[in-house]
């Protein structure tokens, strides 16, 4: 499709000349002789370039440009100002109003057409007016629609496909600007879709984003392996997903725009001299070489112009009123954007000292005005060529560096993902092993114990007569041992279980749970009389099942160790210590010697003989682990024969005693 150019100029000669040149170059050209004609033609739409004269019979070209830029269509059209006004301030005014280039009359037709083509190409690469198309491949209708709505809201055009095959067909036919594909699809999966795209010559540069639904470390790895530019977790916020997709698409567009700017395009030279005669002579010589020439009469004008207009070479007179060549040169060479532009210093005298001064100020070359123009032209050509080579080299270097960085980033991401996947797998394996172990303990260790206990009982019942009192005692001890071992197994399983469980925090009424646990203890030993004092409304944010285990152990211990008290008392209360709520289970039982307090919370550590108080020594270790998992602390105080107090906190947030 050819691009349309509006040629707006009141001179018939200019119109005919440019229309002919543009049409020969494959454009469709529409001539307009007045501002109002131009307005009407532009409102008709379709123009991608406007060549605009500054002086129009019914208005000012720069003002018309302002109008165009303010309209929706005109924001993105390429505009070349064309003017016989040699004044630098006119140029600056036009460029500030948003002209893409400013060409002086007499113009070079070749330059104007080439420049117009370059501008159009650059705009196409930037792709601003056309909505960018994104292909979404996902079998989940819900998520697809959410994403489509969000993308369309952000100004993208959206294509959707239900599976990988359909997606690849659509991609080949429609050439989207980006592809978003779900990792898990019926038929070929997301990673394979991306791999197919990367193998297709026409599609390989299309940015691809892989969606993953899981916390699976392997998905990341597969995405990078397949060549995805980014991957996004579906659980992420929709805005975060959009941002990722946007970033991936921008990277793709950036690469395209860089290629569109050509090193062999039309070139523009800024000539600065206080002598109008010399300037016009210089301009005509250079224009004959197909350069576009911009003229400035002093250093100040040159600097003002360079601030708004890009040039490819600067010719600077050394001796000028005002700022002077030397100082202008120094300022140009210290400005970041223009300092790389080749600068050739001109002077009237063939003066070695002046030459050294000029080069010292940063000029790239030095030429005497008295030299033949042929020499000057050759020097200009050489400087521009040198600059091109430098640019080219820099571009290649940057490209290489970028590729290298991308490769090392990809390697690092790859390694990280591999490591993460490995760790996740290792952890899962360990968990499975532990689970299998405790399962087998639960099943297989108990069965023989049942045999030992049951068959001992059978001997006692069936063959009791054949045994003396000592034989009976032995068998009772065998049974006792079997039952105790069963308790240990159960407690150990609980301890392992407590570590493996996922913490489910919720509101737990400790007061109520304590009364329930106490009722169960009373049910098992209805003969005992124990007084229970529980403060009301002890509500915490914690895991209900685990806190119940804590209370079972603490109240169970208190129950057990008050077994020899005539007036047994167990108390659950809360208090405040340094801003932290502390819960206490206190009893008036056997207590313990504080010298051994360190051993209390370790597995299998017991401070009482089995004969006095039976137990497995795992209960407080379990309590400790549960409190620890809640981010709290647990500690004990006691006096031998005067009771024990176990205190615990649940971290600063959890406690909420009322």
């Amino acid at each position, binding site marked *: 499709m050819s691009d349309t150019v509006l040629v707006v100029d009141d001179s018939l000669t200019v119109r005919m000349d440019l229309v002919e040149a543009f049409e020969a170059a494959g454009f469709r050209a529409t001539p307009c002789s007045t501002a109002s004609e131009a307005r009407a033609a532009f409102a008709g739409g379709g123009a991608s370039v406007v060549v605009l004269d500054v002086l129009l019979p019914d208005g000012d070209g720069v003002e018309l440009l302002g109008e165009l830029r303010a309209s929706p269509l005109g924001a993105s059209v390429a505009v070349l100002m064309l003017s016989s006004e040699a004044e630098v301030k006119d140029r600056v005014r036009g460029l500030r109003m948003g002209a893409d280039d400013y060409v002086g009359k007499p113009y070079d037709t070749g330059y104007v057409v080439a420049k117009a083509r370059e501008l159009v190409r650059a705009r196409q690469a930037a792709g601003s007016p056309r909505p960018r198309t994104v292909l979404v491949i996902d079998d989940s209708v819900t998520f697809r629609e959410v994403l489509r709505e969000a993308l369309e809201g952000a100004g993208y055009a959206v294509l959707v496909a239900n599976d990988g095959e359909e997606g690849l067909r659509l991609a080949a036919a429609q050439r989207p600007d980006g592809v978003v594909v779900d990792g898990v699809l019926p038929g070929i999966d997301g990673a394979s879709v991306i791999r197919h795209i990367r193998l297709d010559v026409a599609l390989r540069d299309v940015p691809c984003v892989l969606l993953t639904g899981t916390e699976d470390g392997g998905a990341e790895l597969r995405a990078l392996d397949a060549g995805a530019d980014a991957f996004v977790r579906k659980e992420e916020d929709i805005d975060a997903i959009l941002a990722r997709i946007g970033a991936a698409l921008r990277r793709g567009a950036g690469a395209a725009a860089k290629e569109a700017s050509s090193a062999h395009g039309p070139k523009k030279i800024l000539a600065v001299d206080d002598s109008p005669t010399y300037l016009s002579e210089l301009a005509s010589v250079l224009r004959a070489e197909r350069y576009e020439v911009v003229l400035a009469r002093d250093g100040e004008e040159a600097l003002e112009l360079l601030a708004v207009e890009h040039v490819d070479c600067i010719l600077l007179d050394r001796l000028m009123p005002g700022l002077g060549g030397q100082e202008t040169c120094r300022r140009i060479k210290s400005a970041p954007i223009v300092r790389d532009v080749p600068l050739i210093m001109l002077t009237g005298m063939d003066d070695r000292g002046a030459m050294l001064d000029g080069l010292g100020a940063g000029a790239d070359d030095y030429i005497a005005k008295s030299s033949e123009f042929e020499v000057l032209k050759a020097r200009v050509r050489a400087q521009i060529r040198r600059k091109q080579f430098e640019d080219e080299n820099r571009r290649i270097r940057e490209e290489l560096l970028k590729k290298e960085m991308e490769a090392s980033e990809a390697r690092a991401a790859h390694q990280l993902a591999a490591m993460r996947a490995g760790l996740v797998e290792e952890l899962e394996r360990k968990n499975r092993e532990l689970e299998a172990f405790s399962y087998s303990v639960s*099943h297989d260790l*108990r*069965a*023989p114990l049942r*045999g030992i206990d*049951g068959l*001992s*009982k*059978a001997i006692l019942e069936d063959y009791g007569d054949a045994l003396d009192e000592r034989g009976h005692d032995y068998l009772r001890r065998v049974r006792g041992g079997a039952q105790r071992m069963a308790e240990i197994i159960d407690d150990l399983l609980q301890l392992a279980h407590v570590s493996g469980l996922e913490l489910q925090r919720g509101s737990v009424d400790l007061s109520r749970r304590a009364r329930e646990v106490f009722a169960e203890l009373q049910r098992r030993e209805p003969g005992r009389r124990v007084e229970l004092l529980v403060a009301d409304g002890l509500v915490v944010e914690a895991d209900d099942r685990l806190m119940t285990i804590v209370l079972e152990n603490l109240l169970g211990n208190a129950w057990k160790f008050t077994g020899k008290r005539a007036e047994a008392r167990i108390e659950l209360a809360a208090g405040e210590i340094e801003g932290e709520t502390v819960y206490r289970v206190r009893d008036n039982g056997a207590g313990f010697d504080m010298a051994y307090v360190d051993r209390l919370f370790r597995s299998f550590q017991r401070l009482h003989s089995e004969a006095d108080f039976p137990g497995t020594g795992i209960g407080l270790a379990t309590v400790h682990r549960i409190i620890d998992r809640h981010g709290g602390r647990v500690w004990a105080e006691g006096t031998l024969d005067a009771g024990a107090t176990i205190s615990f906190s649940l971290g600063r947030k959890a406690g909420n005693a009322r």
Partner: protein
Amino acid sequence: MSTDACILLVEDNPDDVILTLRAFKKAHVANPIHVVSDGEEALAHLFAEASKDPPRLPAVILLDLNLPKVDGLTVLRRLRADERTRRLPVVVLTSSREERDIIGSYDLGANSFVRKPVDFDQFVDAARQLGLYWLVLNEPPPEVP
């Protein structure tokens, strides 16, 4: 329910077989108890009994989960999939108290889940309650025509 209603015990551990039989005896459950020692045998026995005319299915099955050949949960699944045995009362009687065993059993349609206690006295107590409930109180499903 007549006292000759049969109990099928599916249990591979011979000690447990002795203990279970003894526990039922101690609990004065006098019904005949048929013992099979793996899942495959259990299924073969049950489907053979079900095919008789009239079918002679047990009043209740006591099913261990850890069984050679076909495991207990699979036995349960197969029984529930067959029209002739789908309503048969099944009590899972096992060593485990693992949540997944309990959930798995109920999901597959077990009528009850009992953990075998190590203490034989408690086991006798459990056997007594099982016998009372499944052989006396429970109304069995009607015969499948």
